[in-house]
């Protein structure tokens, strides 16, 4: 059976052009970039070229890019690294209530270790409350961390305004751009961003590599100590093929962003329009200010994991914010934060598009989703009302 992958917010297929470039760094140019000899030289050159490509995509300087093992590590490094380096200045950090787990768990850990955390709430579309942000700022606030775009509902946050506020108050601003990086324009200078996290496997690059942009001059403490790689900020032998792949993936994104955005938005809108034709269905996230590739809907009376199960039988790979799909048996904190009742949160479906999705696939999906919903609603004790 042909499979249709609509879970590109979870991870993506590596672009063959990316893999192609990576290959020789496994079995041919396999040196350690810290070695003196020719194998080391060619590996070093390769990662520096990648660094430039990444920097280019967000208007940074290449010495501001630190390679990590992925988005989770980048967020941990950004938040813990800034917290530890600035604890003499203050111990208060502000994050939004819809951050990714790796931000939330990190600040919870900091909270247990003497830091104070404020959680900024969001409106029904998932947009953070800018006025509230100002009121949360204290004299000991050292960091504001607010994601660029939400991974579940696709809402894009007003990071330019947030950056300005942080600048005015002289507070460091970190943004988790894992979902927006390479998909929509980012300019760290224009947006006054001090730290920015990105992950390779979300942009058709390989898994196991990510980066943290750190504005020049920003004091940060490492979280992985050792040989002093990555300007002393992130030790560990560099993942050369991974970094090369990430760089290539970023380069492709930059080149193709404009057209891809248009192409993917068109498919997104087609999906949304058709899904909303199903009765007792709603769109989650902002109707306009959302990622080009994100669709998130809730179907009343059915549960998301079961829906994923049926779609999977149809060859469609999708995701849900239902409790039943999580380890914790709690529905998505993001869906609850935008005011969904738990039962509606349980019935959510996320479809996220990528470079390799086609119009034809979308047409198939549009046919199959009502079928799947209908099948589960037929099993449900609630058919028209709760």
């Amino acid at each position, binding site marked *: 059976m042909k499979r249709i992958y609509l879970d590109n917010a979870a991870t993506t297929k590596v672009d063959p052009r990316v893999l192609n470039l990576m290959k020789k760094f496994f079995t041919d140019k396999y040196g350690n970039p810290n070695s003196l000899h020719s194998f080391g030289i060619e590996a070093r050159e390769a990662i520096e070229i990648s660094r430039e490509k990444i920097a280019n995509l967000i208007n940074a300087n290449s010495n501001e890019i630190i390679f990590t093992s992925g988005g989770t590590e980048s967020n941990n490094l950004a938040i813990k690294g800034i917290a530890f380096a600035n604890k003499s200045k203050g111990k208060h950090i502000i994050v939004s209530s819809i951050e990714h787990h790796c931000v939330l768990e990190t600040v919870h850990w900091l909270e247990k270790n003497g830091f104070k955390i404020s959680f900024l709430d969001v409106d029904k579309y998932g947009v953070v409350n800018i006025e509230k942000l100002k009121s949360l700022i204290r004299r000991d606030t050292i960091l504001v961390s607010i994601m660029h775009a939400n991974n579940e509902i696709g809402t894009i946050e007003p990071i330019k305004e947030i950056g300005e506020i942080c600048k005015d108050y002289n507070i460091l601003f970190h943004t988790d751009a894992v979902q927006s990086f390479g998909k929509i324009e980012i300019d760290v200078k224009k947006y006054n961003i001090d730290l920015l996290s990105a992950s390779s496997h979300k942009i058709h690059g390989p898994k196991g590599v990510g980066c943290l942009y750190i504005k020049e001059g920003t004091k940060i403490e490492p979280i992985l100590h050792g040989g002093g790689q990555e300007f002393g900020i992130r030790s560990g032998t560099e993942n050369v093929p991974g970094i090369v792949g990430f760089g290539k993936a970023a380069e492709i994104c930059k080149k193709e962003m404009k057209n891809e955005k248009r192409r993917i938005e068109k498919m997104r809108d087609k999906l949304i329009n058709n899904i909303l034709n199903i009765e007792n269905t709603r769109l989650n996230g902002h109707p306009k200010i959302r990622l080009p590739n994100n669709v998130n809907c809730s179907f009343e009376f059915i*549960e998301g994991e*079961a829906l994923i*199960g*049926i779609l999977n039988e149809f060859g469609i790979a999708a995701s849900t914010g239902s409790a039943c799909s*999580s380890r914790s048996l709690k*529905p998505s904190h993001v869906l609850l934060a935008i005011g969904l009742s*738990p039962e509606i949160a349980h019935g959510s479906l996320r479809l996220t598009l990528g470079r390799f999705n086609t119009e034809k696939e979308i047409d198939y999906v549009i046919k199959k989703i009502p079928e799947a919903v209908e099948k589960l609603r037929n099993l449900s*004790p*609630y058919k028209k009302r709760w």
Partner: protein
Amino acid sequence: MNIAEQYSKLVMKHFKKPHNYGEIKNADGIGTVGNPVCGDVLKLYIKISKNKKGKEIIKDIKFQTFGCIAAIATSSVITDIVKGKTIEDALKIKKEEIIKKLGGLPPIKVHCSVLAVDGLYEAIYDYYKKSKKEIPFFLEKAHKEILERNKKER
């Protein structure tokens, strides 16, 4: 956690083609258990008649479930298990039997098998109630416990 980690082939079989789903219009007893807030609601319908020996049996049983793959599969399998059984025997069912019949359930989904048993108890309780029969002590007790469970997160 994903489907592979969680679910046996048998679970997936029941999920894909559930047995005995739907409503029984003139049911003799209906059990409704679970809580939509937790993402699991099961409604079990039973139809009672007597066998040759004059014992009451579950002649027909159907379910409606709002819930995950495991909830649907456990609902389906319990209807298989008790259909045709005497009420007496049906009340002997344990969650372990359901789990076994499904070739196992992941630990985090064991509560779904409890839900199925609860649904059966409640349907029988409802039948007793409606038909104004004397309700055995253990069933009265189970009923109270189930009401408690429905309020909490499962």
